[in-house]
């Protein structure tokens, strides 16, 4: 797609290139902040409804202002840096984690006419940049000078690095079918109804039916790895409250903790957006040309992503935490072979169609 920089060109016509770049960069930030408020509220409410209770009710109507109150609260909290902590690293870690999540947002195509950065190797970039989160976690865990933080950080690193392999396999499978790493191109290929989505074998007509089981399994594998990469339940061993106090962010308070919180929810959105792009058609409407204008495409993209965020929250309040060795068993002995088999099938599909 040539016109993914439509908005950038539009703004830079009236302002300078640098100013346009800054303005464009603010859009994902605003999206992230608004989304985080919605996601935190959604998490509290869904968790409560699943437990047959009500959740926040007394902050605004139905507790709608609860996340806002939390932001104001966190702004005022004392910012503690422990005495034995490694101060520069301790203070840098939350920003590194947040940077990873924010940089990943920069290549997501919200619509065919708007991606903050139309990188032609967007998928590869997202896999690479999400490793920044690992570094941030190690930094925070090590600098806290707290054994629980350190154990949490080590668990988190081993978990994320292991689960990156099946995740990369899934992304490679789709890339080999789409012959591209550009997220905008992949989204555009899946236009024309949900039958063309890669979770249902991609846009190849009726003869692709043999591929559908493999792509569906691939989607499930990616969903499981995405849970592990964002440290969500059932894979939240790095911050397991029953064993480690709060994992790698035990010693963080106030706004620095808020950054960890924000990055966790931001990463949830990023993995959901990747899932949307590579399996569920990205910004394309599920009903062919129905409501497929560039503005509606933003709606479809965010709606699909939020659906997967909701799915992650739903799963969090369903499953208990796994043990560390079970976690590794699942990754290396189940997800990796499954993703390899599916990758072979999808590569064959990519060669045929």
């Amino acid at each position, binding site marked *: 797609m040539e016109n993914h920089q439509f908005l950038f060109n539009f703004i830079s016509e009236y302002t300078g290139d640098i100013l346009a770049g800054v303005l464009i960069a603010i859009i994902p930030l605003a999206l992230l902040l608004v989304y985080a408020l919605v996601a935190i509220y959604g998490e509290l409410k*869904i968790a*409560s*409804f*699943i*437990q*047959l*209770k*009500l959740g926040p*009710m007394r902050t605004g109507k139905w507790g709608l202002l609860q996340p806002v109150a939390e932001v104001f609260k966190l702004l005022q909290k004392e910012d503690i840096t422990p005495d034995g902590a490694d101060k520069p690293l301790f203070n840098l870690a939350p920003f590194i984690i947040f940077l990873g999540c924010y940089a990943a947002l920069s290549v997501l195509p919200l619509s065919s006419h708007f991606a903050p950065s139309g990188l032609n190797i967007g998928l590869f970039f997202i896999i690479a940049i999400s490793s920044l989160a690992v570094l941030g976690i190690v930094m925070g865990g090590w600098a806290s000078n707290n054994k629980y933080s350190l154990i949490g950080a080590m668990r988190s690193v081993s978990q994320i690095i292991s689960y990156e392999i099946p995740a990369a396999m899934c992304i490679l499978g789709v890339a080999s079918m789409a012959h591209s790493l550009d997220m905008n191109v992949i989204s555009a290929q899946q236009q024309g109804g949900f039958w063309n989505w890669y979770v249902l074998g991609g846009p190849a007509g009726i003869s692709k039916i043999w591929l559908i089981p493999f792509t569906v399994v691939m989607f*499930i594998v990616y969903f499981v790895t995405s849970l592990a990469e964002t440290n969500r339940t059932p894979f939240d061993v790095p911050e397991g409250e029953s064993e480690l106090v709060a994992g790698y962010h035990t010693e963080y308070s106030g706004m620095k903790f808020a950054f960890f919180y924000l990055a966790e929810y931001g990463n949830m959105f990023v993995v959901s957006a990747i899932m949307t792009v590579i399996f569920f058609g990205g910004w394309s409407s599920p009903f062919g040309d129905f409501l497929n204008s560039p503005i509606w495409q933003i709606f479809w993209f965010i709606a699909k992503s939020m659906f997967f965020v909701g799915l992650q929250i*739903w*799963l969090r*309040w*369903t*499953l208990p935490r796994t043990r560390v060795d079970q976690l590794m068993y699942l990754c290396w002995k*189940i997800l990796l072979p*499954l993703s390899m088999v599916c990758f072979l099938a999808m590569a064959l599909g990519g060669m045929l169609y």
Partner: protein
Amino acid sequence: MINYLKNIIKGFSTILVGMKVTFINLFRPNVTVQYPNVHPLVRAGSDKMPDNARNKLNVIIPKCTGCKSCEKACPVNCITIETTKVASIDTEKPLMEDGKKRVFWLSQFDIDFAKCCFCGLCTIACPTSAIVHSTDFEYSCYDRNELLVHFSPFNKEQVAEKKRILAEEVKQKAEKALADKQAAEKAAQEQNITDSKIKSSDDQTSANQNIQNNSN
């Protein structure tokens, strides 16, 4: 190999079963009682305050005889009772609830709810069921001293006043006894002196009454 695949399929299918359960729960009506809006006393039905709920203790002072059996029964000694005899010269003549004449003022009846373990032994021990569990549970406070509740109807000055009256009476009685003794000794000789003394004490009691009215 077959076991491996079976294991995988079983794992995913059980996760789906769990998700089904939580999904059904997501749309079931909630069971929450919205406390400040729906007070448990007002709310009818199953969630009414139980009869034997161990809430704040209440002392019905007109019923209390000051027998101190609750103080003795209390396992944590959180009840402090002090009684003052009702002086016969006191113009206030209180009655018990059942119409009997009161013998003691309850000059002090304190329950320290910071120590109380709400076991209810005092309510069993009380012969007139003057001390009972009420339905009030909303009395948390910012200062611990507020939990020391004074049930006595008197404040400190009034208690001092009552004590003073009692002391006066005792003194009077002693004087009277002395006078009687003296009178017995000098029975036939000097009757005029005792008459004048009684007259002066009558003046004093009327003055006391005035003070009490002012303080009230």
